[in-house]
């Protein structure tokens, strides 16, 4: 039982938090700008490297240096939106999807040019886990990740339901035409989307980097499960994406728990496949996602 909690449940929740933070941005961008943002993983990577630079130059703890990474990631996506995505806004979304593919390539090459391609770590050495009653062994980072996601969930809920910008975002996501007619400043909403999406991605990137290491493909390797999470939650539903991320993370980790026999239920090599399989099944039977998202 403790083994289940220590090595399957909590790591699953932590992994889920990382997916969730990325998926929220993907879902919001999908809902408001109506395209699948393939460069989102690389925004995470940018956030991680931005933070890393602050850690190196200022000698801060990664979580304290995080704001630097956030600002860096947000400025990058805002610039990219202005230069590369905005001119394509009125065209069929396929153009923007492809453009975002190109942006992913640009981000990654720039990262490799500036920081090089070798792995980096925030903190050297093994992080001793928190041990409670000799039973619970949890990495501090995982507790931090779970705490962050809870905080983000509360803040996001407050933002979306109580603030003017949040409500406008929901309106645009539900019906862009109507929102425009109603006189909402869509460009402002778009900007807010990038700022939130970029910030959360940066946090996700730093958490992923803390959990393992930082390298140029950090975010790119996570993009598909994050998409799965966004779809799972229902496109355009940030809270849904959050839930979707947690579900995907948990399913991935729990699928290899020896549920029935002594053997893992699913061979760990197919761990990632379970996330995709869930996504495909959901797309077929409930394409609007867990929390009724938009269907385009």
């Amino acid at each position, binding site marked *: 039982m403790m083994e289940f909690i220590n090595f399957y449940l909590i790591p699953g929740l932590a992994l889920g938090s990382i997916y969730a933070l990325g998926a929220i941005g993907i879902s919001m961008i*999908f809902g408001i700008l109506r*395209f*699948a943002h393939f460069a989102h993983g690389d925004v995470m990577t940018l956030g991680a490297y931005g933070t890393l630079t602050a850690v190196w130059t200022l000698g801060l703890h990664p979580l304290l240096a995080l704001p630097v990474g956030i600002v860096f990631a947000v400025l990058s996506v805002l610039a990219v939106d202005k*230069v*590369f995505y905005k*001119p*394509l806004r009125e*065209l069929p*979304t*396929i*153009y923007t*999807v*492809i*453009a975002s*593919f*190109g*942006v*992913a*390539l*640009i981000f*990654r*090459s*720039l990262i*490799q*040019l500036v920081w*090089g*391609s070798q792995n980096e770590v925030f903190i050297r050495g093994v992080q001793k886990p928190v041990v409670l009653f000799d039973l619970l062994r949890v990495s501090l980072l995982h507790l931090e990740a779970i705490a962050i996601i809870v905080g983000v969930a509360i803040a996001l809920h407050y933002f979306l339901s109580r603030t003017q910008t949040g409500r406008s975002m929901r309106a645009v996501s539900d019906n862009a035409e109507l929102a425009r007619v109603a006189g909402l400043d869509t460009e402002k909403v778009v900007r807010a989307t990038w700022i939130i999406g970029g910030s959360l991605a940066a946090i996700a990137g730093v958490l992923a980097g803390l959990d393992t290491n930082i390298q140029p493909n950090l975010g790119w390797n996570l993009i*598909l499960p994050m*998409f*799965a999470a966004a*779809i799972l939650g229902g496109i355009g539903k940030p809270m849904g994406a959050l839930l979707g991320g947690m579900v995907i993370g948990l399913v991935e980790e729990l699928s290899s728990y020896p549920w029935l026999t002594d053997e893992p239920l699913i*061979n760990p*090599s*197919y761990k*990632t*496949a379970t996330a*995709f*399989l869930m*996504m*495909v099944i959901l*797309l*077929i039977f409930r*394409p609007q996602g867990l929390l009724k998202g938009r*269907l*385009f």
Partner: protein
Amino acid sequence: MDPVGLLFFLVGFLIMAGIYAILCLALNVQWGYGGLFNAGIAGFFAVGAYTSALLTAAPAPTHLGGFELPVLVGIIAAAVTAGLTGWAVAKICIRLKSDYLAMASIGIAEILRMVIVNEDWLTNGSLGITNIPRPFDGLLQGREADILFLAFVWVIVAIVYLVCNRLYDSPWGRTLRAVRDNEDAARAVGKDVDSFRLQTFVIGAALMGVAGALSAHYFRFLSPEATEPLLITFLVWVMLMAGGSGNNKGAIIGALSVWAIWSLTEIVTNRLPAEFATRSSYIRMLLIGLLLQFVLQKYRSGLLPERSPGIAFDKDKDKTHG
């Protein structure tokens, strides 16, 4: 530069471009005619490549088969299995709207890749399959043999082009474009939309399988990374968008020009000073990314945009505006 070397470089270049041209024509059937956002091209490519490799390679204890069948049999079988895979995928998710179909097809391609990497008994997993023959093996020696393979590839490109053109210039193609332009209206005039989409998906998938098979025969070696989903899928999309979706000639021209950019930038970046040695590859990727943005913003309808095939009996042709 050595002219003979340049000739053989061109041969290799055109073989790859031909393989991409087939992928691009196949995507054109799915997206250009049918409006289906297939983002799992690499999956069908992989199925085709493995089918043909397993059927034609020399027997080996490490993977299934090695039946030493003729290459042509392998290629036809590749089309069949990739088509069947396409059929199964389409059966499940053809009703999904564009972006969702894209996600589902990426997911399925990724699952296929995992099966290929993990099921050693079938594919020899990550160690891959060696000793895959080429057609007319032994007729010519050394790199001269590449010329034969080049001819073989482009004969197939020509056949695929012909097939695609005939599909396009037919009531079938017309109906498909109608389905793409307006699904509800197509239903209202009696078209079985799902059936047409299914057919399109299967035909496109089968052609992608052919391209996969050709690549396996070209490399004579096949391992899972040959089917890296995001790279192949992404490149083919760029080619089709740049060439002009809905236009078969555009698809081929797009494949040639984007492949030229992709491949030739390395020759340029290699000319950078030595201290850039590690960096030149990233600079190249950066250039490609920027070039792509340039194409999307300035040449977005492609080099050759879609045009109607015209009606054969329409004698009093006034100027065609399409």
